[in-house]
């Protein structure tokens, strides 16, 4: 029965969409963590919900609605709260209002009770060819933008002050990154739903960071883990009457646990190598005694 299902077009669509979404989420994840934007991801996904439920009411494709909602809010976050400290409160404010709107739209939309459930917890099995094309197009654009700004984005994310001094347009990058993030989140919502977006956008990258300290390798590992979670979760869900997000989040969380276990050992090894470079042992002396020492 499982093998028969694999020949169904709707399964192909689902797997394709799941893979596309996972690649984008896996690539953008490490940046989300480095830039400390997990909450922004959550906020954007709630507004993707608002967009999608609004689209249902008006009668357009909810995938387009989700994309529109998340990009609008990404631009809003970028425009209103560029400073770190303000950002979370701005996001919290927009998120709450957006979610309220979403609830309103869903209560106006009375045809399917399952529509709300699908948006919140994910539905991949109903993806049409047109929607797969839309997802793939969005993903290609997002990946292209990320590739184009990869090096300056790494620089601006890990070291904004020096990046600015080196002429990197830090504010512009942060704006463009938010828009790309809007794309990525709206796509991930299609697979795992609004409430579980972080399981594809943050968990794989968090796991990857435990396994390597090389920036490029972390992106690769993050994509692999996101792919395994997304595609694996979809395959398992084919034979069960449980939403796909349950399996996706279980697999990615399992990867994270394994990575923590393995990673702490890798990390210990690299610390030990770095621990005792000759002549750099920190001086145990107190300030006063060293002050005389420096004056020689």
């Amino acid at each position, binding site marked *: 029965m499982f093998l028969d299902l694999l020949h169904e077009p709707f399964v192909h669509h689902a797997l394709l969409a799941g893979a596309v979404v996972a690649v984008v989420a896996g690539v953008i994840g*490490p940046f989300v*963590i*480095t830039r400390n934007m997990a909450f922004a991801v959550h906020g954007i996904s709630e507004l993707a919900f608002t967009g999608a439920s609004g689209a249902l009411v008006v009668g357009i494709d909810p995938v387009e609605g989700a994309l529109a909602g998340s990009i609008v809010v990404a631009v809003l976050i970028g425009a209103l709260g560029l400073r770190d400290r303000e950002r979370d409160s701005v996001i919290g404010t927009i998120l709450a209002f957006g979610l309220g709107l979403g609830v309103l739209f869903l209560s106006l939309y009375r045809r399917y009770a399952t529509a709300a459930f699908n948006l919140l917890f994910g539905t991949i099995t109903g993806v049409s060819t047109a929607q797969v094309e839309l997802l793939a197009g969005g993903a290609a654009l997002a990946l292209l933008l990320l*590739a*184009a*700004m*990869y*090096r*300056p984005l*790494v*620089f601006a994310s*890990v*070291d904004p*002050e*020096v*990046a*600015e*001094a*080196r*002429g*990197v347009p830090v504010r512009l990058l942060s704006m463009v990154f938010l828009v790309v993030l809007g794309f990525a989140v709206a796509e991930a919502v299609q697979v795992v739903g609004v409430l579980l977006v972080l399981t594809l956008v943050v968990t794989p990258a*968090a796991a*990857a*960071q*435990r396994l*390597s*300290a*090389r*920036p490029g*390798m*972390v992106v690769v590992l993050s994509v692999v883990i996101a792919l395994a979670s997304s595609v694996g979760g979809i395959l398992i869900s084919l034979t069960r009457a449980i939403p796909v997000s349950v399996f996706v989040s279980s697999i990615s969380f399992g990867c994270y646990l394994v990575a923590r276990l393995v990673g702490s050992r890798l*990390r210990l090894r*690299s*610390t030990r*190598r*770095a621990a005792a*470079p*000759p*002549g*750099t042992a*920190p*001086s145990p*002396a107190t*300030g006063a005694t*060293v*002050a*005389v*020492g*420096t*004056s020689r």
Partner: protein
Amino acid sequence: MVPTSSPVDAHDRRSFPVGPVAAGQASPKGGPAAELWDATLRLGRREVWSGLTVDIASGEFLAVLGPNGSGKTSLLRVLLGLNRLASGTVTVCGRPPRRGSNTVGYVPQQRAFDRDLPLRGRDLVRLGLDGHRWGVGRPSRQARRRVDDVLEAVGATDYADAPVGLLSGGEQQRLRIGQALLGDPSILLCDEPLLSLDLHHQHEVSNLIDARRREAGTAVVFVTHEINPVLPLVDRVLYLVDGRWAVGRPEQVMTTDTLSELYGTTVDVLRVRDRIVVVGAPDASNEGLCGAGHHHGSDHGGC
């Protein structure tokens, strides 16, 4: 805020030529590494400093001192081409400052990196080479060799492959200096690079900067709260207070007379062995006038 600027340039720069340091080996191109002439900087409606005239010779070590909000960091931002003067001129190596120029290296203060940050020491240094360029970048043997050379020059080879989040403050600052040196700059701008380092590492990091200027004739502009760790290296001091300024050799500027005039109140400067102690300077670190982008802790008393 005192908008009137009164340069306390009691000592004409010309009558006090730059110390003997490295002048011999310094690149004999002539011309200062950087020059400000009658420069006025405004941030918003606030005049940070005005009429500032100072030049920095190749191989010179200029310490920039002053309370928070006096525009020390802003001065660096002007030299980096990030802030524009309201009036006056500024040149770096004879040309107006340009964002992202290789003639300028920048060393910031140490800050904690996340322990999980996926970035090794060599990656941090490498950002100084091509981190500002678009695209993903390709692996290049030549680039790798340059990074290796710099890592060795700053003595960071041993921990080049360790995650930066696990390194000590002193190790991070060595990497920062390496990062700044990759562009082979003619002038090194340092913004409190010793802050939050213990004295041992302060000594090592400042010696590393000193070595570079001696070997390559690189001029150093060194913003600091605390002159004593670098006092033996300093050729001249630029002291900024509330729009007023004074420039000259440490023994000229760090005096009771000059600082009292700058602060507009009685400030005593004492010499205790080889240290300079400033007593009675209004503790500006509590003023919170951080228009210049300063966010230092207030754990430093006088200079």
